[in-house]
Each structure stands twice: as C-alpha cells, then as structure tokens.
C-alpha cells in the first residue's frame, strides 16, 4: 500500500502527512456528522435520509441554492475579472489603490452589507427619497427573493475571483503579449486570446470559490430570502437547528450531504474548465502590461464609480451606524457621538481579548493552510490520482457547508480527549484553530493550484534529473514561481478568518472569544451601534496592516501583495 503512494520515501512522507492533516481536521469531523445522517445514535436507519430526501421542500431549496449560486457566481466572476485585469494586466494609474479598496468589503460582516443595501433600496431610503425614486411604502422590497440574493452574494464574493485571478496575472508571460502586439493584435483581442486563456485555471478556480461560497452562505439568503419565503438549503438547515428536535442533527447531516453534492458539481466544472488548454509555460517571465492609452480615463472613472457603489455603500452604512447615538436616528449634529468607539475600546473587556484571539487564529490559519496548500497543491496537480482527488474534495467540503454545521461536526469529534494525547481540545482556542484549518484550506489550495497549472513540468523534471530531491524541488523551483499565489491565498484566508463568525459562535469558550463572536453578541443584545463601531475598528486596523505591508512591498518579491499593481 505504502509503495503505491509514491515513488520515493519523501513522496510517501508527503502523502502520509497530507492524509494525516486533512484526515484529522476535515474528514474525521465530516464523516462523524454524516454517520448521524444514516445511523442516528449508531444504529443504521435510513428513515431520516429517506424522509428528508423525499420532502419536496428539500428539492425546492436545493434548486434555489443552485440557482442563486450560479447567478451570483456569474456576477462575482464578471466583476472580479474586470478589476483583476485592470489591476494586474494594464498600466492604469493608481491601480494599487483600486485593488486595495476592492478588497475592503471582505472585512465587512456580510449582514452589515446586506442591511446597508436593504436600507439603500427600500421605501425608507434617504437617497431614493431625495431622488423621488423610493418604492411606495408597503410594496415588496426589490432585494427580497432570488435576484437580491444573487446580486448581493455576487458583490460579496467578487474579491475571491479578483484575488485568484490577480495572482495568476502576476505570472503571466509578457513575451506572449509582446509577440501579439508585434503582430498587430488589438488590446481586446490580446485579452480574449492570450490573457484570459492563460489565466483560465485561475479564473475557473476563482469562480469555483465564489460558487462554493454561495452554496454555503447563510447570512445573505437569510436576510434577503426569509422575508420573501425563499429558502435555500442553508436556511433549511438553520430551520432544523432552530427546532431543537432530537433528530435535528441527523437531518442537518442529510441536508449537508446534498450541499456537498452541489459543491462537487462546482469542483467538477472547475476541473473541466482548467483542463481545456495547455497553458504551461517553461521560460522565465517578464511582466508586460497592456497600455490603455486614450481609453485610460474612461476605465479609471468607471472603475472608481463601481467601487464607490460597491464599497462605499456598506462602508458608509457601517460608519453611520457606528457614529449615531441610537439605531434608526438620522445622523445629524445632535445625534453624532464617539461614545460607541470609546465604549468598545476602553470599557468592553472582551474587545482586546477577542482582537488578540482573532489575530492569532487568523495568522496561524493563514500560515498553516498556505504551507499545507503548497504541498497539497503539488499532489493535486502533479500526482493526480484517486487519492489526490479525494484529498482535494475533502479540503473543499468544509467550506461548502454553513459554519454552524462544521462547528457541530468539530464538537462531535473533538469533545472527547484526543487518542494517545489524552487531552481534549474542547473549551480551548485550539478547537477553533482546527476548525479554521478545515474551513479555510480550500481558499489557499484553489489559488495555489491555479498557479501550479501555469508551470511547465519540464522545470521540475530538469531539477529532478539534476538530482534535486522533492523538498528541494518544491522549495527552489515551484515555490518561487507560485509565490504570488501562495501569498494571495494566505492574505485571503487572513482577511476572512479575522472576521469569522459562524464557526466560532459555537466553539468559543470563556476567554476564547473571537472578534466575530463579540460583534454578534453586541448585535444580539440590541447594541447595533456598538457592534458597528467594533466592525469599523476592525476594518481600519486591517486596512492599516495592509498599508504597512504596502510600505514594505519594495523588500518583497514582485506580485506577492495581491492588491498591488
């Protein structure tokens, strides 16, 4: 058996290490949960499976999940691609700032974004009222239902496409573009026939990430779907969980199985799309930017106008809520206050603790999943086989399920003391970290795999012939070529993990809160203004960290900071 894993001892070690990691954080919890679906309480009983899969509402919800996920993926892909091309492939002025601002929505809690849009387009909208366009009071809200869910999730997930594609553009061979230019090809033609096909794996990876995120998204469909009676699978799962029926976990397990099946569709589509062209490139690369020339001002104005809408709307709403004395009051001279900021900064004891916890969790998760992603990506791209594919799918699934389901699965496995070690992770920060490893591995993996698909195997083969061992080949040939993608994956994971809520909402314990949990607790206690103030602080602090990284960019390899042009 061991022989079949790989040709050399180091390859076997690589496979065993990956199996151990993915098995522990991802396969074990999900398998334990699924067991509850087919064998509740340990006895085989397909009754729940049959009743859940036999219910028409299950299939209606699955259909709606698929429809909203596909539509939102299309929106996210168009928006993310447009911005990635502008920032990564053109000579647009100020494009680093453009990329920087485009990433900010990743740090705004998704319910804040959804509520901001609900307010902006609803009957009470201050903007629409001024323009005389506000819908009549009492009419259905334009965002409730299918199109609203698809649109808002599309905006929400566009940065995922942006980040993966941006990383691939950083290693685009400039020679190919130069040759096309010399042959007299126009800019659009270059983008259509060279840039996009060469980035197809990344584009497919970004779209797949947006698709999987949409399938597992609960917050947006809950806010925009429930009022319209439009339930997707994650909302059905939450209904089961909110009912506290003894069989709830089993039913959730079956519904999760269905979500997993939908996610596999996305994975299959991604594989199909990225295998269509051979875009591997063996020569060293030089950057070559596409000159925008006379069209530059048009692009500049359009891009910033779109950003103003997509980023400014949620950000202004967040800031306005954080600065007002009480939720619902108009922001005016006599209602503006900094008291909310003062309270969360100086009086709310949990803030500092949660900030440290989240900072640690996000950094550790980003670091570990990027490292694991480098090795797992190697196996997925160059040692493709049943085992490699199984590992990739196992890395993918935890992200396609709502966070609460992953948290339940983690409790089922990690509550009891670990075998051999005899200590339990439960009630510590480590159980959150383990769940984060499972949840966010795919974000790094997808980005890295897309970059590997651009690398020609001849480079590594040459090194192998020259006698370089596996670790050396990965360290000196592959890693330098894929560095922008590895960094993009790590940054993506860091930004998302820093604000994570749904997993930690079940797994935190006294002293081990995360920022997401503190924001959620404030919100639930009716303190929306305090919750907004804390969210603003998180956005500002993260933006400051990103700005610091930009200052240090000259010392970093080119293309490592995903927002830099």
């Amino acid at each position, binding site marked *: 058996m061991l022989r079949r894993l790989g040709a050399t001892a180091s390859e076997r070690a690589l496979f065993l290490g990956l199996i151990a990691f993915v098995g522990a954080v991802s396969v074990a919890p999900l398998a334990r949960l699924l067991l509850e679906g087919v064998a509740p309480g340990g006895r085989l009983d397909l009754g729940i499976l049959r009743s859940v899969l036999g219910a028409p*509402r299950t299939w209606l919800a699955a259909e709606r999940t698929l429809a909203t996920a596909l539509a939102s993926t299309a929106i996210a892909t168009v928006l993310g691609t447009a911005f990635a091309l502008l920032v990564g492939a053109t000579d647009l002025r100020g494009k680093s700032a453009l990329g920087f601002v485009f990433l900010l929505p990743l740090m705004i809690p998704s319910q804040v974004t959804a509520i901001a849009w609900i307010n902006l387009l609803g009957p009470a909208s201050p903007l629409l009222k001024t323009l005389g366009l506000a819908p009549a009071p009492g009419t259905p809200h334009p965002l409730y239902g299918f199109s609203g869910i698809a649109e808002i999730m599309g905006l929400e997930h566009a940065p995922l496409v942006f980040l993966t594609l941006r990383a691939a553009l950083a290693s685009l061979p400039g020679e190919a573009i130069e040759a096309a230019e010399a042959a007299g090809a126009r800019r659009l033609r270059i983008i259509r026939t060279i840039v996009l096909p060469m980035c197809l794996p990344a584009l497919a990876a970004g779209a797949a990430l947006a698709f999987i995120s949409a399938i597992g998204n609960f917050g947006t469909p809950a806010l925009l779907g429930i009022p319209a009676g439009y339930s997707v699978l994650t909302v059905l799962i939450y209904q089961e969980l*909110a009912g506290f029926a003894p069989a709830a976990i089993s039913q959730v397990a079956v519904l999760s199985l269905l979500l997993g099946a939908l996610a596999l569709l996305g994975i299959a589509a991604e594989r199909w799309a990225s295998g269509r062209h051979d875009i591997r490139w063996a020569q060293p690369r030089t950057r070559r930017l596409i000159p925008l020339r006379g069209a530059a001002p048009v692009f500049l104005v359009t891009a910033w106008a779109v950003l103003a809408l997509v980023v400014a709307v949620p950000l202004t709403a967040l800031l306005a809520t954080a600065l007002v004395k009480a*939720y619902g009051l108009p922001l005016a001279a006599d209602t503006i206050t900094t008291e909310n900021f003062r309270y969360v900064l100086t009086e709310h004891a949990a803030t500092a603790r949660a900030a440290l916890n989240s900072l640690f969790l996000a950094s550790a998760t980003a670091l570990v999943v990027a490292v694991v992603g480098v090795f797992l990506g190697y196996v997925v791209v160059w040692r493709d086989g049943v085992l490699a594919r199984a590992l990739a799918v196992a890395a993918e699934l935890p992200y396609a399920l709502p966070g609460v389901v992953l948290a339940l699965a983690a409790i*089922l496995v990690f509550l009891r003391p670990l075998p051999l070690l005899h200590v339990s992770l*439960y009630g510590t920060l480590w159980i959150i970290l383990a769940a984060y490893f499972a949840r966010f591995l795919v974000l790094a993996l997808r980005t890295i795999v897309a970059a590997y698909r651009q690398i020609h195997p001849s480079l590594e083969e040459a090194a192998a012939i020259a006698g370089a061992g596996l670790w050396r080949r990965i360290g000196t040939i592959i890693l330098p070529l894929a560095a922008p993608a590895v960094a993009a994956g790590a940054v993506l994971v860091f930004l998302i993990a820093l604000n994570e809520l749904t997993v930690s909402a079940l797994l935190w314990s006294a002293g081990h809160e995360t920022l997401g949990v503190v924001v959620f607790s404030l*919100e639930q206690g009716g303190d929306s203004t305090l919750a907004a103030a804390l969210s603003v602080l998180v956005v500002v602090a993260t933006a400051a960290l990103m700005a610091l990284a930009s200052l240090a960019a000259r010392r970093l390899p080119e293309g490592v900071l995903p927002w830099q042009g």
Partner: protein
Amino acid sequence: MRLTTTLAVALACALLSAAAHAQSGKLTLYTSQPDRIAAETVAAFNRQHPGITVETFRSGTTEVMNKLAAEFLAGDPKPDVLFIADAVTMEGLKAEGRLQAYPEADVSAFPAAAYDRDKTYFGSKLITTGIVYNTAAPKPQSWLDLLAPAAKGQVVLPSPLYSGAAAIHMAAMSAAPALGPDYYQKLADNRAIAVQGNGAVVTQVAGGQRMYGVLVEFMALNAKAKGSPVDFVFPKEGVSAVTEPVAILKTAKNPEAAKAFVAFILSKPGQELAASQGFLPARNDVASPPGFPNAAELTILPVDMSQTARETPALKERFSQLFGG
C-alpha cells in the same frame, strides 16, 4: 459553659466550612441572555457566592441549544445550568430526561404557571411580546390594528421557524378567542413579512423599513430608551409571554453550585436584579420596572407549554404555508 460555647463555635465553623465547601468550585453556565445582562447576573451571584467560579457560554438560543445537542451526542455535556429563552425548549429537554429536579427550590412567591410542576425548570421573568411601532406611524391599540388597510405591507414579525418565542406567540394568538384561529392567515393576507428573529424586527422598525413589528418588550423599550424612533404597545387583547427558565442538568458536575445559582435567580434579590435590568420579574412580590403596566393590568394570553411542544411541528408547517419558507 465555656466548653459548650467552644463546641458550638467549632460546630458552626465546621458547618460553615462544609457549606462553603459544598458551594465552591467551577459552575458552567450556558445562557442565551444578552451579553451585558448575563455578566451582571453572574457578578451579582458571585457577590453572594464568591467561592464559585462561573464559566459562561453565551450565544443565541439556537447556537446554545445546538452546542448542547452536539455535546449530548458526543456523550459529555458540559453545562451545570441552562438559562435560556422559553419553556417549550425546556419541555423538550425534560421529555428526553436531561433535566434534574430541584424539589427544595423556594417557589412560594411564584405563580404556578411560572415553573414546571415537577420542579425541573423555573421561569425567571416574563418576557412579553406586543407591538413595536415607528413613531412616524399612528399608535396601534390592538392586534387587530395590524390587519387594517393602513398596516398593509407594514408589519414585520419573527418567524416561528427560527424562534421558539415566536412559536409560543403564534400558539397564544391562535388560541385567543378575541383574535380567532385564522389571525395569522389574515396577517399574511395583509402582506406582513416574516424575518429570522427579534433583532431583525427592531432593526426594520427603527430603521423605518416597516412601521409595525411584533416584538419582545425589552428590546423595544431599550431601543426607545437609547433614542431610536420607536415605542411599544401592550395590545388590549393581551400579550404572549415566555419565562426565560433556568434548569439544572441531570449530568451537572457541580449540582450544589448549580442549586445555589438557581436559588439566587429565584430569590428576591435575584428578581430585583432582573427588574433593574428592565425585565418583568416572575415573583409577585417584586415591583415591575418603569415602562411596564402593573402586573394586575397586564393580560397574559395563556399557553399550554407541553401541548405547544407537541404541536410545534404542525404550527411551523402552517406558518410556512402562509408565509413561505
């Protein structure tokens, strides 16, 4: 004489230390109380029982109950005390044999409806559901005002598919003779919309998205006290109520400390604390907080908790037929 005094003192010391020993150590509390309220409650309890270290897990009711369900399944439930939204949920746990009776609990000052007959769970307060309205709209008086043409498309209510309190509210409304069993049908006909929970209701009404909401009183009164443009009405037909019960788990690792906690919640100081936090106390010898009508003037629509626990699936089914989902 001196000998007896010494003996008496020694005996008293021994008893005291035994009592102190019995009520010390770690107490694990799972609660869905808002953060600040939970912290105040624990602090007040600790002033009486400094020897007990309380570890609190606080989250939404759904999150708390699912964490607990997973712990049951994994075979090692952690909490000693559970302090959550409603009696229907407690009925479910009682039926599964998860709760421990506390027969010595002093319930003499409580109305019989406030606690479980078998003394496995005890209501700590009355959280009533009435009508919140945006002050830009005319003040409603009755539940029937939500069916008027002026309220068409203007009513938002928490969905019983996600909230136990909302399920109890639906049961109470449907059983009230003044409103009739088809009250929810009429609400749906008047284009009322359902949202996930109470928090979303107050956001919509305070933000002016909808003018009227079905909401628990303390959230509305808190928002009003902070200056949000909302007010709250106890409609004339009456209000539904949940009791935020407290219970000891059968698997409690520190049952003595758990009993001390429950006793504190039910004690007069514990109930006065709840009143000072803006809740209607369940004890009849503690005054209501400002903003509430006198207990005598308040009509609580009756609900049979164990019957509601059994009928909840049918109730949810009817709701999702009316409102979708």
